């Protein structure tokens, strides 16, 4: 048999091995967490706060961190959206395409995308010391929003690039200004993509531990004010895993299942949205 056909066979085999190995590992990861955590996963965990001695294996739940994570990620996503939308509108419709400025902004977004969350955390901590704040929900939201802006902007940027130019011209030719076109026509056309971008950013924020560790603190209660510390799911997992008690560690796995389920839900929703709205679009 000729070498070129043998080469094809060899590489094909290598690829199949690599793919099966990857699939196996990834299934193993989810499997491990599910098996370990399923026993501890009770309704009580979702609907109760940690009671006295919870971290020694007494009763209670992690309602505080579920709510806390939603508050943090929700707030951060809203805040990030208010910055990301103008950024991408500017990049796509208002900037002069010949100038270097849009390129610089896109490059900065790429860099920021790669900036580790612990660095955002450190920066949030700096803000804290500068303004004399303490670890709080607000600071956590600001830090997470900074982390989300590059993710959301880059995703929305890709979506807006796909809006057909004919559609813009149609709007301009009716006498609409750039802003009106962006606000009324583009948003409608790009809505599924924008929603998906928002969900992706939300997913990243809700799973992030390093930045909230330094800025949001932790509490056993449900946070009702922007200026109080707030609990979060990734940290709940992290702390419970750090205890020497097997029962508590098991709850960490259960919490990991809850977090995974939330991420799964988000991922499912963004797929649904993309599919559902796609039929109203102009191609």
């Amino acid at each position, binding site marked *: 048999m000729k070498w070129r056909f043998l080469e094809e066979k060899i590489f094909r085999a290598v690829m199949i091995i690599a793919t099966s190995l990857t699939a196996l590992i990834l299934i193993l*990861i989810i499997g491990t967490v599910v098996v370990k955590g399923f026993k501890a996963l009770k309704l009580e965990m979702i609907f109760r706060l940690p009671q006295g001695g919870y971290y020694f294996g007494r009763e209670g739940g992690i309602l505080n961190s579920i709510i806390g994570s939603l508050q943090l990620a929700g707030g951060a996503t809203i805040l990030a959206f208010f*910055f990301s939308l103008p950024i991408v509108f500017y990049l796509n419709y208002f900037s002069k395409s010949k100038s270097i400025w849009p390129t610089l902004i896109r490059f900065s977004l790429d860099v920021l995308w790669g900036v580790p969350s612990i660095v955002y955390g*450190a920066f949030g901590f700096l803000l804290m*010391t500068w303004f004399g704040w303490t670890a709080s929900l607000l600071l956590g939201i600001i830090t997470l929003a900074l982390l989300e802006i590059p993710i959301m902007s880059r995703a929305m940027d890709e979506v807006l690039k796909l809006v057909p130019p004919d559609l813009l011209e149609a709007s301009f030719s009716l006498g609409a200004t750039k802003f009106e076109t962006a606000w009324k026509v583009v948003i409608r056309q790009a809505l599924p993509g924008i929603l998906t971008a928002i969900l992706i950013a939300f997913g990243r924020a809700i*799973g992030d531990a390093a930045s909230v560790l*330094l800025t949001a603190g932790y509490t056993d209660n449900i946070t009702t004010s922007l200026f109080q510390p707030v609990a979060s799911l990734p940290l709940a997992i992290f702390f419970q895993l750090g205890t020497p008690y097997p029962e508590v560690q098991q709850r960490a796995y259960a919490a990991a299942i809850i977090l995974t389920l939330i991420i799964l839900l988000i991922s499912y929703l963004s797929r649904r949205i993309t599919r559902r709205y796609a039929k109203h679009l102009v191609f």
Partner: protein
Amino acid sequence: MTNYLWRLRKEIWASKFMGLSSSLPVFLILLMLLGLFLKAKPLFVLKPLSQIIFSSHWLPLKGHFGLWPFIMGTLWVTLLALFIAAPISLFVAIFLSEYAPSGIREIARPMIDLLAGLPSVIYGVWGVLIIVPFVGRYLAPLFGTYSSGYSVLAGGLVLAVMILPTIIHVILEIFRAIPQAVREASLSLGATKWETIKHVLLRQAAPGILAALVLGLSRALGETMAVLMVVGNVVQVPRSLFDGAYPLPALIANNYGEMMSIPLYDSALMLAAAILLVLVIIFNLIARLILLRVEKGLR
């Protein structure tokens, strides 16, 4: 007419507002660099920056803040992860996009997206449960050494698994964007599928693959929690894969609690964050330069 003026005014304001907010990313980077270095400044009064970076002397209570072990720890773990993940993710992405039947692809895509979004703590948990014992009990004896399992190797493996889905996802998108006609052009000359991939598709996708790898590298570099849980957190410059290490992000996350109680400790940790930031910027710049090169060659 007033209506027209009002619309015009809205347009001008909107344009100004958008111009202003679009400068945020640029200034955020500058602000972070400036802020972190300002905070670290008191350290430079004692010793020059180069001595802090290249010294392995770490005794916070006595005011010695040599960051070299942490920098090396970061580089070891990150590069190892990329070294493992890069070929595997490339093979998986090529298989899924070029060879796999559509059924498998349909299942794989959402799976990969899900895994790319999975929080790092979960990977850490898995690392503690599986990888650490695996390294300690099986791999280390196999190589004739002792290891607790909490090691550079464990960190690299966990990180590699973590960045796999991200890299695969990006490379898949890139291959999907290559028109079918390019493949047909090569196939119709009598090339095999693999030859088409090797000579044509990989070349066409090179800039994108590079970008994907840089993204993976950045994520590996800054990944905190998962690594922190499996790498051992030992202050030393690692000499083998089975040694423990202490990467920069782990340093910051582990010690933020005490940093206000020891003088200059906070400055040292902020410097660690600044170094991470600088590393990310450098990686991105290098990638951008290579990209420009490659694109010039193709277009």
